[in-house]
């Protein structure tokens, strides 16, 4: 897929923002409402059910903190990829994007081990209010991490050939958003007692 297949509609910029970045902001806006809706619902329940503190104490704060560190570092890689793309260094941007994906992989792996332990201790999706929200929130977030990783690999493949470099910044924006969601999930699910 090369640039010549793009319609003129894609190359115009009435707002001054390139279309690909414009669509990324709109995607982020709609995701804010999706995660916001779920998070607001959780917060309402959590505040209304102080007895959930007991259940919440079983989440592994160190796993959560480590995963936060992993995502922050992966965001660093993503923005360094943007910097490389701005310098027209496609291969370096691809490398940084792939490191970002690696961060996502570590995140999901740690979560896998974390959830395995939780399940062995008997805490599953239907184990009551707190756990239902916990798995739903972290699960929806994890799906977004996975989707981001896949799209990022596709963008990296093009970037390595110095193609479609404008997409590097945009997948980075999405990744930062997913990172910010986790920045709030961490205290909500792992710290708040």
């Amino acid at each position, binding site marked *: 897929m090369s640039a010549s297949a793009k319609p003129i509609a894609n190359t115009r910029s009435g707002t001054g923002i390139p279309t690909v970045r414009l669509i990324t*902001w709109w995607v982020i806006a709609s995701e804010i409402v999706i995660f916001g809706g779920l*998070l607001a619902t959780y917060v309402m329940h959590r*505040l209304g059910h102080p007895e959930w503190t007991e259940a919440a104490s079983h989440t592994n704060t160190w796993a959560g903190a480590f995963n936060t560190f992993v995502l922050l570092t992966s965001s660093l890689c993503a923005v360094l990829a943007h910097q490389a793309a701005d310098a027209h260094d496609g291969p370096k941007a691809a490398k940084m994007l792939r490191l970002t994906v690696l961060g996502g992989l570590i995140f999901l792996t740690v979560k896998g081990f974390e959830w395995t332990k939780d399940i062995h201790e008997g805490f599953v999706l*239907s184990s009551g209010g707190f756990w239902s929200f916990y798995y739903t929130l972290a699960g929806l977030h994890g799906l977004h991490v996975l989707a981001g990783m896949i799209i990022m690999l596709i963008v990296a493949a093009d970037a390595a050939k110095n193609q479609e470099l404008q997409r590097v910044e945009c997948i980075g924006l999405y990744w930062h958003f997913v990172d910010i969601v986790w920045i709030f999930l961490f205290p909500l699910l792992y*710290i*708040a007692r």
Partner: protein
Amino acid sequence: MTTEAHVHHPNYVKIWAVLVLLLIVSVVGSMSHIRNVVLIAAFGVALVKAYLVAKNFMHINIEKRWVPYLLIMCLLFIAILFAGVAPDVMKHSGENWSKFPAKQGAVTSGGPATKNE
């Protein structure tokens, strides 16, 4: 198609270091026994971290002004959602109504499944 650099790139590693430091603060602070310290450590830090990521990594402050306004409008809608729903869902009683199972301290962890198959 190549990007026309529209942002000035600061030292991203420095910003990352600040973020990690804030993470450590929030974890350490959460081990305190004072409720307000825990809350500020957890959520105050989260707000600061989110702001730093948005400003320095996403370059929101250099973007056209309506973009952060749009995102804030979405957050505002979530605030409206919370304001309209929490009085019914968060509270367990109000003017002329009560939620009896909730007030009895409903099943919190484990608990029998209902009539779901």
